[in-house]
């Protein structure tokens, strides 16, 4: 018996991000949505995930409800394995201990390069200025697999980002290695509020892997400012499960400030 689930695009994005996590692996968690993804994943799927925050919290297990804004407070760094500082945090990632990194983005391009610095104009005289790298550049450089998590808005997917804040595959195959970045690293998935993308093993181009159940690949790519590759067989992603939604709505973000968004429906 099928039934229809209602959820927001943000809830879907978080839920499918959480499902990508592997138990007993480590993840360098960016500020904001990635924190929620990691918490949801840890509670439901990967109890032994090791989170790392850039200011030196190793292995935190955040308390609920989630406290927004600061990552450094006692709630978000609760029950860490170790409290250090920023240079140590980046030592963990630089020497290969971080399996995954997860970052938000303002813009992303077919090679998974991330812009989170500015839009329009020039660096010196931008039209709109944003937060910039923070530790995102280090996360995208050092972690084995970087996951970008981003609202599915066509204008965020551009043929070439205006500024490479955090490196994807740069100009294509071999470019990371040529630049001196650690071997075998790079973007792994782009999680959006409608779909999931990977990167072609050979060309390193962004490739549509799966879409929310009920959507067609064309629904997903039509608004994007570049046309991604599309996998031979595009899978469907189930909508958020009852457990995911319950946890997100009742325990993680009861005030629904983070998980609000565009209303969506899909068949459970």
């Amino acid at each position, binding site marked *: 018996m099928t039934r229809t689930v209602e959820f927001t695009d943000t809830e879907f994005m978080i839920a499918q991000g959480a499902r990508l996590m592997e138990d007993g692996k480590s993840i360098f968690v960016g500020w904001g949505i990635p924190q929620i993804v990691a918490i949801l994943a840890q509670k439901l799927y990967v109890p032994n995930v090791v989170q790392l925050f850039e200011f030196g919290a190793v292995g935190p297990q955040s308390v609920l409800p989630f406290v927004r804004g600061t990552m450094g407070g006692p709630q978000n760094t609760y029950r*860490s394995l170790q409290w250090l500082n920023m240079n140590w945090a980046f030592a963990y990632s630089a020497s290969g201990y971080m399996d995954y990194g997860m970052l938000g983005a303002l813009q992303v391009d077919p090679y998974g390069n991330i812009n989170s610095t500015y839009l329009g104009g020039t660096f010196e005289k931008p039209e709109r200025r944003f937060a910039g790298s923070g530790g995102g550049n280090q996360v995208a*450089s050092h972690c084995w697999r970087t996951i970008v998590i981003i609202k599915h808005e066509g204008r965020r997917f551009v043929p070439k980002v205006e500024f490479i804040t955090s490196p994807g595959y740069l100009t294509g195959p071999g470019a990371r290695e040529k630049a001196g*970045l650690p071997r075998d690293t790079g973007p792994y998935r782009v999680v959006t509020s409608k779909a999931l993308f990977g990167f072609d093993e050979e060309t390193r181009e962004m490739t549509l892997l799966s879409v929310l159940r009920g959507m067609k690949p064309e629904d997903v790519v039509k608004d994007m400012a570049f046309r991604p590759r599309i996998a031979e067989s595009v899978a469907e992603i189930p909508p958020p499960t009852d457990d995911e939604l319950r946890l997100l709505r009742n325990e993680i973000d009861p005030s629904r400030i983070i998980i609000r968004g565009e209303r969506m429906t899909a068949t459970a």
Partner: protein
Amino acid sequence: MSVIRREGPVEYRFEHPDDFRAHVRDRKSRMPSDKICRAGEAVSGFLKDGDYIVYDFSSLTRGPQALIREVIRQGKKDLWIGAEFTLHESALLTGAGCASRIDVGFLGYGNYIGQAVCDGRVKVYEWTNGGLALRILAGARGVPFLPTRDLLGSDNLAVSAAKVIEDPYTGLPVCLVPALNPDVAFIHVHQADPHGNARIFGTNLFALEAAMASHRVIVSAEEIIEPDEFRKDPMRTTIPYFLVDAVVHAPFGAYPGAMPARYEIDLEHVDLLNGIRTDEQMKKYLDENIYGVADHDDFLDKRVGAARMRELRRRATIIEGYR
């Protein structure tokens, strides 16, 4: 071996390590003395127009907010901020006309600072959080640079003074960032003694590095304790006294941010800050909260109040791990 990429045509703060060493020899004292002073004295005595400043952590967590408000109150000019996380600090310092350059880091929050950058009211250079932390570590270690395998390939390279060289051991391109020796570091701590020994509980960004690397160090502390306490528990000392120039007793010195295990963030006040979009709103905030009060105590009395402080303390229920 060769230089693969020289730095972009950008300004950067750099001091020959020998010059910093000479400053440490001649101007920093290893003789313990009473360094307790008011925030006003500390800022007027140790910070001057044009200085490069850094601080540990952010306006949301253990940032030196009382000291930053004092900088604004004194109308310092042309400051260059090394801003790992600059959440509201840069917005306030820029809005008040104190800051002209910012090395970032993470340039959050809110629209005011973003607009100021677009308007060219403040210049920004990109180093990333990891790059800035490494620059300060280099400054603390007395070396002119430290190497890293990030920044490479990204556009941050062109708008920073990082260089790329060929590593003589592997032939790999490796990024070098220059040492940073700020003029002044502001560090808000849980406990300090009058000589400047200081303890932070929880994580920190680069508290010890920044204290070692900076010409002058102003510590503000929630609590002042006896010097002997530090010698009884040397593993808990974050900063030893001989790195520190001034000690300011500033309970609620991180307000409106949280002081882990002491008081929680005041989200209402933070929302007030987040809401600043125009110069008028900025002026109103500065007038009410900084120019219109005499000092930090007066701010606490007039703009926070005992009931709110009590409530924020009450909310800080997690003390596990913070000793």
